[in-house]
């Protein structure tokens, strides 16, 4: 049987294959380990971790919309001490790279958190979340201004020896400008994209479907936006990009990789089919073999533009 090389590098982060699971959609992996073989994945990105315990937003926290999902979970998480003491030791027993998604209220929070997570056994990288639409402080506030985004990224890079990804928000006028400034401070890669700010209202009652009124839209509804962002950003920066947004199957993953992504994250699709990430991996591998790509790297950026 013909084979293909599935390994990929996001800067200093080496992945056995390009199929990862997105922050907030896979818990701390143990929730899905009963259902699928987590060891097959390239990386697991954790739920967003903050220094303090966070309770999250009021109910309802999720609402279904056409071809997608609104959420306003609000970064509920057990805090960094619980992550280090309880979650990480269990997570690190799985084979994939473990990437901690980190969130702060201030630039100093991001720096402190990065320092606390530095040098821990079993942790392979950080994903800096400056793009969550569901919290009033931190998150997206840092991701919409190129200068502030770069300052957050630099603060993290200075406090850790781990590879650093920065997850950017599509809720900006010019994401390329943000991406360029963040790429300049020496991060290993970018994750594109987080959810789009969105809202839905019950037409009968007039009540918003989310308790937090506004939330983040994910799922196939946002895929064309994400593909466009990956395409535009990878043509403007020299660092690798992890594509994320509405991937439902291997064809969607191929689309992101052709747009320029070096790896992909499966997100909300895991909720409807926990095996999505495994099916994406199998399908991608078959596509590469069938089309005689010797490695996934050969497929990156192979979008065929009109003359």
């Amino acid at each position, binding site marked *: 049987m013909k084979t293909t090389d599935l390994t990929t590098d996001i800067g200093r982060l080496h992945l056995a294959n390009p199929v990862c699971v997105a922050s907030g959609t896979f818990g701390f992996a143990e*929730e899905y380990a009963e259902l699928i073989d987590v060891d097959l994945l390239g990386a697991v990105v954790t739920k967003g971790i903050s220094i303090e315990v966070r309770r999250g937003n009021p109910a309802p926290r999720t609402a279904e919309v056409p071809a997608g999902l609104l959420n306003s979970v609000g970064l509920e998480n057990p805090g960094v001490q619980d992550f280090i003491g309880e979650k990480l030791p269990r997570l690190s027993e799985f084979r994939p790279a473990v990437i901690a998604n980190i969130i702060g209220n201030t630039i100093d929070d991001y720096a402190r958190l990065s320092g606390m997570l530095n040098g821990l056994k079993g942790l392979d990288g950080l994903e800096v979340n400056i793009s969550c639409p569901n919290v009033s402080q931190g998150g997206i506030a840092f991701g919409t201004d190129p200068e502030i985004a770069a300052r957050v990224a630099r603060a993290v890079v200075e406090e850790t020896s781990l590879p650093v990804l920065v997850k950017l928000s599509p809720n900006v006028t010019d994401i390329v400008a943000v991406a360029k400034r963040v790429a300049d401070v020496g991060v290993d890669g970018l994750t594109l994209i987080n959810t789009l700010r969105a809202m839905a209202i019950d037409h009968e009652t007039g009540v918003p479907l989310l308790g937090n009124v506004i939330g983040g839209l994910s799922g196939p509804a946002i895929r064309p936006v994400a593909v466009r962002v990956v395409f535009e950003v990878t043509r403007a920066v020299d660092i690798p990009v992890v594509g994320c947004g509405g991937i439902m199957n291997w064809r969607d993953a191929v689309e992101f990789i052709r747009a320029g992504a070096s790896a992909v994250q499966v997100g909300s699709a895991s909720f409807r089919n926990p095996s999505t990430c495994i099916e994406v991996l199998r399908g991608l591998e078959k596509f590469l073999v069938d089309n005689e790509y010797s490695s996934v790297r050969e497929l990156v950026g192979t979008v065929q533009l009109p003359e």
Partner: protein
Amino acid sequence: MKPLQAQAEVVSSQRVAWETWLLGLRAPRISDQVVPGQFVMLGPLSPDSTDPFLNRPLSVHRVSEDGILYVLLARVGRGTALLAKLEKGDTLGALGPLGRGFSVPGATETVIAVGGGMGVAPLCFLAERQASAGMRVRLLYGAARAEQLVPVGEIAEEGVEVSLATEDGSHGIRGTAVDLLQAELEDRGQDGGKCYLAACGPWAMLQAVAGMTSSLGMPSEVSLENRMACGVGACLGCKVHFSTGSSGRVCRDGPVFDTKEVFGP
């Protein structure tokens, strides 16, 4: 007992009450394992369909002797409307069994199951199992009006003693499941210790039930409902912070919780 993903085959779909369907599914590896109080996520309807995007959590209502898993489906929105259209021979995804079911204490002699509206769904499964295990089982079941009452004749034949209430008095007593419980507890006197109570229904009903059982020292559990995205504990969409200071994911830490954890002692 690990949950698993399966393709379920629809073996029957029957409208059993107002806007309510009883769906029979062949999903043997799930129906073999499921215990009362647990649920299944139904969907996707086909691998690439995005309508609906998410699966729907449904309590297991019954498992027949030939292994057919039944769920009660209320048509309340787009997703449940699509499920209600399923016909015999259709297939769809099914994930389960999920969540924590009822834990009836070993010394229990009598089970009192209190169901309001669709809350009766998991209680029928519990009632049937406990009755066949030799316990005395009372099902106190209320709905708004007669046409909303789901037929429970089959479990009555298994020995479950059923009392019905409707808010408009069109069937059974005029009142609610809470009124039935009030009368039941007055009849029983103070032998709460040997009773176990399970309740499922609207929040206000559960709260009222909690108030009545705590003073009797009767062990009791409530089954909660919430919107869910994943059903396995990953998304935290259904996490509830109780007034007691405790909290839990309805899908994984529940849906069945000790009443004291939710409402306090």
